[in-house]
């Protein structure tokens, strides 16, 4: 994709992301990459492999698991860890595990305990001082103002009013005792950039992004996929085969599918471009607490 005259926008974005990752590796003591197995994570992982080639990326992958991800996600996760030559750490919040916290019975508590609390525990346990995350600024309004190097207090909270200015490509990675950094190397990418990069670089992604006949039930206006036998069917509910795909991936009982026939990358991109709803709409999490939902969650330590 090299153009003799001007770098393309994807080449500039790639160079910026690689630069960010190398800065972190050079300045942090114990970096880690949060790997959620979604398409943004996939691109982030691919960029990391580019940044440090021929070395493998000099940090582990951390999957803060809820045990409720799609099976196809676990498969890709294990395969990618192997291919990249990176150590894979999988963390389960022991308290959530013990209490059997699940998305069907516990609602918001599920996300809070497995993901938010689980992440804090994992970072503390391993003593990671810098964690890469695949968030993008175009996803949500409060993300648009978050720095690329985003600091968290010892209790992992975010103070949006007290962020360090980030000028040029100079990042201040100096931490106070107890502080850690969340680093977002793909901050400036849009959803379309991600898709296009996946296409141009053959980045492996979970097949759930492509349409296929899958067992589904419709609940509260969302199309849910019955991914395993743990899915409790309500009286009268019967899984129906529908051609669906996912625009975003999380815990299968919380992630809404869209009916679609898009089975190739080009078709997925085409559908994405022609669609009239934003991608996070499929997630229940953003609807909590009205317009300020994500900002509030982030202040509490959600990634």
């Amino acid at each position, binding site marked *: 994709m090299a153009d003799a005259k001007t770098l393309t926008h994807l*080449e500039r974005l790639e160079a910026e992301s690689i630069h960010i990752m190398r800065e972190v590796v050079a300045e942090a003591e114990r970096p880690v990459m949060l790997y959620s197995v979604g398409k943004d994570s996939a691109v982030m992982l691919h960029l990391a492999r580019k940044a440090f080639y021929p070395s493998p990326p000099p940090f582990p992958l951390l999957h803060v698991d809820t045990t409720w991800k799609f099976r196809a996600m676990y498969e890709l996760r294990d395969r990618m860890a192997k291919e990249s030559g990176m150590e894979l750490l999988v963390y389960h919040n022991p308290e959530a595990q013990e209490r059997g916290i699940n998305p069907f019975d516990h609602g918001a508590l599920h996300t809070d305990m497995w993901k938010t609390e689980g992440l804090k525990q994992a970072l503390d346990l391993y003593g990671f001082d810098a964690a890469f995350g695949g968030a993008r600024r175009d996803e949500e309004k409060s993300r648009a103002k978050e720095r690329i190097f985003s600091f968290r207090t010892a209790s992992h909270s975010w103070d*949006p009013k007290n962020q360090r200015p*980030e000028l040029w490509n100079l990042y201040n990675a100096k931490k*106070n005792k107890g502080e850690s950094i969340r680093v977002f190397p793909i901050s400036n990418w849009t959803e379309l950039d991600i898709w296009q990069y996946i296409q141009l670089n053959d980045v492996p992604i979970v097949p759930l992004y492509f349409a296929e006949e899958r067992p589904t039930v419709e609940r509260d206006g969302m199309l849910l996929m019955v991914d395993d036998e743990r899915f409790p069917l309500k009286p009268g509910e019967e899984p129906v085969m529908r051609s669906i795909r996912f625009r975003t991936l999380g815990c299968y009982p919380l992630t809404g599918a869209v009916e679609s026939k898009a089975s190739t990358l080009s078709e997925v991109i085409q559908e994405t471009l022609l669609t009239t709803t934003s991608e996070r709409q499929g997630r229940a999490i953003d609807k909590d607490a009205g317009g*300020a939902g994500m900002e509030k969650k982030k202040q509490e330590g959600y990634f």
Partner: protein
Amino acid sequence: MTDVTDEPIYKTDALIAEDIDRYLDVHQHKSMLRFITCGSVDDGKSTLIGRLLYDSKMIFEDQLAALEADSKRVGTQGQEIDFALLVDGLAAEREQGITIDVAYRFFTTEKRKFIVADTPGHEQYTRNMVTGASTADLAVILVDARKGILTQTRRHSYLCHLLGIRNIVLAVNKMDLVGYDQAVFNRIVMTYRAFASEIGITHFLAIPISGFKGDNITGPSDNTPWYKGPSLIEHLETVEVDQAADRARPFRMPVQWVNRPNLDFRGFSGLIATGTVKPGDAIRVLPSGKTSTISRIVTLDGDLDEAVAGQSVTLCFADEIDCSRGDVIAIADSPPQAADQFEATIVWMADEEMLPGRSYWLKIGTQTVSASVQAPKYQVNVNTMEHLAAKTLDLNAIGVANLSTDKPVVFEPYADNRALGGFILIDKISNATVAAGMLHFSLRRAQNVHWQPTDIGREHHAALKNQQPAVLWFTGLSGAGKSTIANLVEKKLARMNRHTFLLDGDNVRHGLNRDLGFTDADRVENIRRVGEVAKLMTDAGLIVITAFISPFRSERDMVRQMMRPGEFVEIFIDTPLAEAEARDVKGLYKKARAGELKNFTGIDSPYEAPENPEIRIDTTGMSAEEAAEAIVARLIP
């Protein structure tokens, strides 16, 4: 009334639906433009950005539905869509109705991808604007057509210029509210042109727009038939980005990380700041100065034949030479300098004021060193561009100061190279980023610029003249008697067969410094040049006599640092202000008191008396003749 059912003009749906692969092919070859929007809420900045996002179809239906609901609940446009709500991110901001921080927005047209830095316009957010401007290729400066060029317009323009943005768009907004009157537009453009050229903005494009109604945003507006230029989007799509200029400069890459997977491979990773590089190129590693050749440019997708500014790469050398993080790899025959003393413009970004002399971390490129900043030479009033005396810089203040580092830093002037000229200062206790800065030049000669040795050295020159070279630096208020006494001193020395040269302020300004004015910045440059000339003359063996007000200690110290120890003789012509003003030989004090002369030393610009001058002359107690006698007696006992 904004009609949200209007079809967006940037509608590529047809192509997307018909031939997605062709669309993607076009899209993947798009270039990118980063720009900043400057203006306050009242200028309609958020409305304009909301409009750009809307017109380029970056707003989804669910966002639009939320926007409609929010508009009715907290909007400021009655029942109409309040685009500002779309871009004002944080909860607190939405409540206050102002944009506080820097937010980044993204949109795409058929020709380019855009990243917009959306920053607040008020003076207390200068640091946010500077942050947004630091990565921008272009600035859109918004003006309310009803209000014209305001103080804040000047401030925004100055800051964009300071941060090195070469492409400026003056967007005269709310044209709908002045009846699309061409005369109003022309008047604003004329006023702006006069101001812009004053601060060094040589060209800009003015566009009459309405963010609210959409005039001249994506295409020509029927409401402004008199305007023949491009619409805002058309201009953004076609304006040349800075990348080409960066690529034309000599090759430089700050080393971020040494890649060493095994004993057989050693590569140096970094983002190319300027220039291009190919295998076989002779390079030099700074600051060590060691040389080698590029053997490979390594990437995951295979080795490259060439890499250019803006790319992240890993370079291998033909030889085993030392190179680590913080070093700069440069083309061998045109390397950057290294120095440990600089003059720089500093933007203070912390609540705690700058402490001159305190040690901060300075990060520039991939180098982090200890640095201390001297008291500012002056502070810039960001609204009037006037230079003010200052002892420190507080939040949002911008000033010029010298700084010194504990070890040499590889650099280039910011005007030439943002990556090697822009730096941040970090507080060593709080670890906060407290300032951003832009290097002008080094104060001491760089370590790696080698002097061409000459057979006839300075000692030889001095011996031929049978004298010890010296700089007799006269300083004091206007009318203190500097020139008169200096002239008498030179006459006496000439009679004693000494080889002298008198550099007089007025005379120098007829030639060497005729391009300089009387602002503080120009005064600093005036003194710097005189210092350099004086230094060359001492190399030639001369006794140099200078007569300049030279009001600031830092400038005089700068010249002192240029000379050999003992060569610089500071002579303070100590005449009280009242006395000098009473004499007023040139009638300048009278003018200054009447407000006709700005920045006049002693009146509205300070004079910093020398603390330990070699010689102090109290003119109230002796005549000019006696003073000259005393000075010569001290020099040649």
